[in-house]
């Protein structure tokens, strides 16, 4: 109670406008009147009564001050008075103040934007219950880990594991989702029945999936919508519940909507729908994978049981996994010596658990370094801006000398002056920070737009939360500290005599500070210029990568005829039909179909067996696999080196054939001609090699020597429920895309074309990260240099104009303008060299951290560094010499006359 009363009193006495002291004046006046009346009653005449009352009271003003001090409001009152004063002076010069606030808003806003992204991708916990208990599963060896598991393994593990209170599994798929007459693709997640329960996620409407929805395969066509999807596609209508949505043609009932803010466990992606794992077979044509322990396609995550550490869980999981594998292979109890090599290798694999509290994210791995680099860049930019403001405000202190001198003479302490100037800076900084909160969302959205949409629509939870706001506040305060302290120090050190003197300021210690602030600004600009140069060069190198085939004028478009219920046997005819149509068009040079999109990151790997060769670990026999139609190599313009291409005559009735890349041939057949050799896939060696093609990049553009086995599309029709068309064309890609669309529609009316892009677009997408960093770094570097040079220009102008008199005297005594400019140039050169030193030092220290983002360029590239240094010094010298020349040209007489 007492604390409350104290606080309330404090606030009352501070904020009661005008009378910020509880009516103190009135109270004292009352006392004096009572005393005067008492004196009158004692017989004193009026005047004497009054003066006697005053005398016995003491100095009223002093007592009043003591009362106010007793209320302990002095610092706060002073601060408010200073604040009011500052506001008034800003209102008198709104433009200047506005410029500062805008600069700060932009700088702090940019930093907040980057931090928001950092927070969303790297820092924030999943919006689930107790995220710190979650762990993500990997299996394999430390050097070679995979995150895919089979369904039987998952079931066994989930049932038998003791270290987890719950284990969930899921797989993400892109399916066609039809509502009413419209159909579009949706990101769907197949999840185990306990998914929502283990994560602790509830429903915003209806209910979420439970274990009872995952009992019998194929028997639970129910779906849960994500909150965003519900808003986007259903308009948030309650009629969505109970309605039907067709996934791959099969109707599912919408039973609920997940709570808002839940986006699954992958950061950067958000499924639109969740359906029970039991429905797996219905999502594709062909066999279901639920029963097969040979297909590893699920991801697993578990909630650690209370009291169990991740290490303990890992150990138990590895043991359990081994046991399950032994049972599966039927080798329990078999001594190790009797096992085959590959069995031994499989059994030695372990389970690894990653902490999953912040979600899993390939986005995180890709963007971790870039985001930190971005953060460093915007931070540096803001730092330069603050140093700039510090010089600006320092020179303003000069102009306010007489004001300060007057205050000192009236009894203000130096501490008070210091606090006043600090407060002025703080005010601007807080205004800037507040404005930044408005600016930041826009900047964040721009940044996110630059992210590649690789695995489906990018979704990041970018709502500003307390962390972000706290960050903004902290940055604002930091800014105020940086650009407010130096001017405040300067102001509080002004000697009274000096301050009240009229005329030019003498070259006191004050003028050293602004120059000292110059060097770091230019040094930091150098760092940013160098960074921009390195990232830019990286981008150039990446753009010019040789992928083994020309990327221009190559159109890609995907279809999924299997989703429309077309009969399996009719699908090959469909492809042939479309390809024939496209072939007849003059602009089309070649057309073919393939299963995997090169350079897009998608891939298929297989273990192959080469008869006559056995030694080595299992991984030695993995290679990339691509399925293509005849003519694909011609379309991609990958030259055939030996033998022949796949042909239409290689069909389901003839022997299986394949074409290999040079690198594969070199590795698996180093000493013989691969043509005619057999390769085995899946247990029987039945693929004959008929041709060798030149190396081309497969899924990673940076690796042009992929070891690829190309198999025939005609001989593997099951894999062509969906496929990509490749069209080498002349003329506009848009036109060809339109023609293709028509051709497809004429063959199968309802079949949509999706993922229509040119090969160049696919390629560019892969380097979206590097592009984003290069452009942003370039932009920031330009801004930084601009800030530093403008600051220098202003400072030299100001400095020189303060020394007009001195210059005038020198000129009249025989100095030439060139001498004066030389004077300025020398001072500037010293500063710039110091800046160079700072910059180079910083670059040396920071270089190792950006290696990850560079390609084909070392972080110590001398050309880039030299170039950056040159630009910086040139800009600096120009910024200094130009204004100096202006001033030096002033005629001496004119200057002296102004005195």
């Amino acid at each position, binding site marked *: *109670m007492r*604390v409350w009363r*104290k606080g309330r009193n404090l606030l009352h006495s501070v904020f009661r406008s005008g009378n910020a002291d*509880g009516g103190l004046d009135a109270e004292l006046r*009352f*006392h004096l009147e009572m005393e005067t009346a008492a004196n009158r009653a004692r017989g004193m005449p009026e005047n004497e009564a009054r003066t006697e009352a005053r005398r*016995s009271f003491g100095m009223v003003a002093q007592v009043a001050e*003591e009362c106010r001090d*007793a*209320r302990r409001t002095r610092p706060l009152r002073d601060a408010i008075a200073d604040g009011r004063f500052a506001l008034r002076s800003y209102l008198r010069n709104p433009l200047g103040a506005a410029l500062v606030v805008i600069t700060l808003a932009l700088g702090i806003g940019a930093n907040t934007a980057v931090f928001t992204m950092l927070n969303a991708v790297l820092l924030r916990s999943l919006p689930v219950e107790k995220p710190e208990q979650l762990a993500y599963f990997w299996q394999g060896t430390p050097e070679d880990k995979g995150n895919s598991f089979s369904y039987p393994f998952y079931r066994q593990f989930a049932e038998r594991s003791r270290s987890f209170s719950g284990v969930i599994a899921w797989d993400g798929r892109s399916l066609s989702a039809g509502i009413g007459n419209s159909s579009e693709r949706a990101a769907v997640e197949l999840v185990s029945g306990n998914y929502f329960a283990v994560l602790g996620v509830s429903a915003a409407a209806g209910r979420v999936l439970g274990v009872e929805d995952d009992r019998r395969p194929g028997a639970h066509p129910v779906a849960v919508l994500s909150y965003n999807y519900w808003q986007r596609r259903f308009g948030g209508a309650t009629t969505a519940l109970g309605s039907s949505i067709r996934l791959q043609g099969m109707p599912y009932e919408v039973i609920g909507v997940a709570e808002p803010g839940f986006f699954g466990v992958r950061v950067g992606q958000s499924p639109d729908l969740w359906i029970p794992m039991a429905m797996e077979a219905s999502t594709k044509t062909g066999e279901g994978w639920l029963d097969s322990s040979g297909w590893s396609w699920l991801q697993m995550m578990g909630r650690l049981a209370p009291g169990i550490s991740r290490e303990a869980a890992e150990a138990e999981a590895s043991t359990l996994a081994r046991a399950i594998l032994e049972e599966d292979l039927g080798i329990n109890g078999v001594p190790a010596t009797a096992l085959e090599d590959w069995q031994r290798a499989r059994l030695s694999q372990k389970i690894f658990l990653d902490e999953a509290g912040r979600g899993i994210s390939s986005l995180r791995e890709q963007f971790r370094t870039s985001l930190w680099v971005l953060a460093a860049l915007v931070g540096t930019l803001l730092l330069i801006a603050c140093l700039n403001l510090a010089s600006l405000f320092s020179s303003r202190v000069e102009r306010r000398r007489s004001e300060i001198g007057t205050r000192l003479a009236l009894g203000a302490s130096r501490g008070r002056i210091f606090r006043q100037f600090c407060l002025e800076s703080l005010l601007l900084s807080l205004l800037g920070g507040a404005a930044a909160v408005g600016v930041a969302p826009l900047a964040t959205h721009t940044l996110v737009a630059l992210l590649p949409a690789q695995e489906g629509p990018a979704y990041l939870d970018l709502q500003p939360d307390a962390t972000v706001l706290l960050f903004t506040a902290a940055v604002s305060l930091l800014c105020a500290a940086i650009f407010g302290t130096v001017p405040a120090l300067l102001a509080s050190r002004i000697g009274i005599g000096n301050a009240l003197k009229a005329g030019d300021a003498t070259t006191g210690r004050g003028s050293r500070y602004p120059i000292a602030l110059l060097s770091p600004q230019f040094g930091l600009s150098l760092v940013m210029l160098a960074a921009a140069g390195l990232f830019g060069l990286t981008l150039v190198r990446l753009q010019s990568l040789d992928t083994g085939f020309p990327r221009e004028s190559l159109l890609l478009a995907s279809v999924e005829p299997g989703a429309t219920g077309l009969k399996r046997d009719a699908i090959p005819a469909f492809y042939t039909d479309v390809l024939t149509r496209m072939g007849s068009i003059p602009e089309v040079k070649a057309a073919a179909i393939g299963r995997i999109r090169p350079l897009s990151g998608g891939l298929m790997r297989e273990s192959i067996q080469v008869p006559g060769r056995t030694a080595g670990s299992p991984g030695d026999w993995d290679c990339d696999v691509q399925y293509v139609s005849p003519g694909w190599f011609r379309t991609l313009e990958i030259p055939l080196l030996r033998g022949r291409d796949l042909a239409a005559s290689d069909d389901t009735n003839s022997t299986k054939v394949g074409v290999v890349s040079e690198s594969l041939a070199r590795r698996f057949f180093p000493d013989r001609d691969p043509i005619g050799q057999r390769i085995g896939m899946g247990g029987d060696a039945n693929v004959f090699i008929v041709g060798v093609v030149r190396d081309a990049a497969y899924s990673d553009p940076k690796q042009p020597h992929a070891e690829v086995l190309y198999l025939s599309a005609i001989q593997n029709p099951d894999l062509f429920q969906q496929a990509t068309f490749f069209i080498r064309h002349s003329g506009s890609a848009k036109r060809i895309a339109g023609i293709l669309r028509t051709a497809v529609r004429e063959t199968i009316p309802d079949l949509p074309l999706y993922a229509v892009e040119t090969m160049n677009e696919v390629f560019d997408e892969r380097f979206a990260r590097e592009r984003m960093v290069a452009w942003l770094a370039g932009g920031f570097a330009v801004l930084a240099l601009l800030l530093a040079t403008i600051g220098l220009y202003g400072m030299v102008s100001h400095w020189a104009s303060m020394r007009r008199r001195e210059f005038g005297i020198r000129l009249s005594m025989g100095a030439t303008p060139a001498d004066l400019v030389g004077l300025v140039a020398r001072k500037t050169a010293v500063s710039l060299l110091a800046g160079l030193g700072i910059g180079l030092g910083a670059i040396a220290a920071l270089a190792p951290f950006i290696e990850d983002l560079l390609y084909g360029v070392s972080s110590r590239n001398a050309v880039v560094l030299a170039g950056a240094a040159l630009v910086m010094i040139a800009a600096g010298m120009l910024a200094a010499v130009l204004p100096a020349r202006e001033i030096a040209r002033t005629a001496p007489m004119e200057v002296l006359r102004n005195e």
Partner: protein
Amino acid sequence: MSKPTDLVQGTLDLLILKTISLEAMHGWAIAQRIRQMSAEVLQVQQGSLYPALHRLEQQGWIEAEWGDSENNRKAKYYSLTSAGKTRLAEEQHQWERLSGAINLVLNPSS
């Protein structure tokens, strides 16, 4: 008349608290009452009274309210808070202990 005894701050607080424990008063009345009750021995330095009052208010022992005074002018009346009552009892107890102890030293009982 002998010089009015200067009051140490702590004792001034005690006197103020005691004075207004009986009824709410404004500053001037408090000064008069102390003089009266002490038979004119204790003359409160008027300059120290008001800072003391404001300090006590800030600390929460007393609270103030504006009211009408005898001559129909607005005056600020101070009264004890419940915390203040406790404080008064404590302070009074302390004072009695202290003065009792000093008495013992000055007049050792025979």
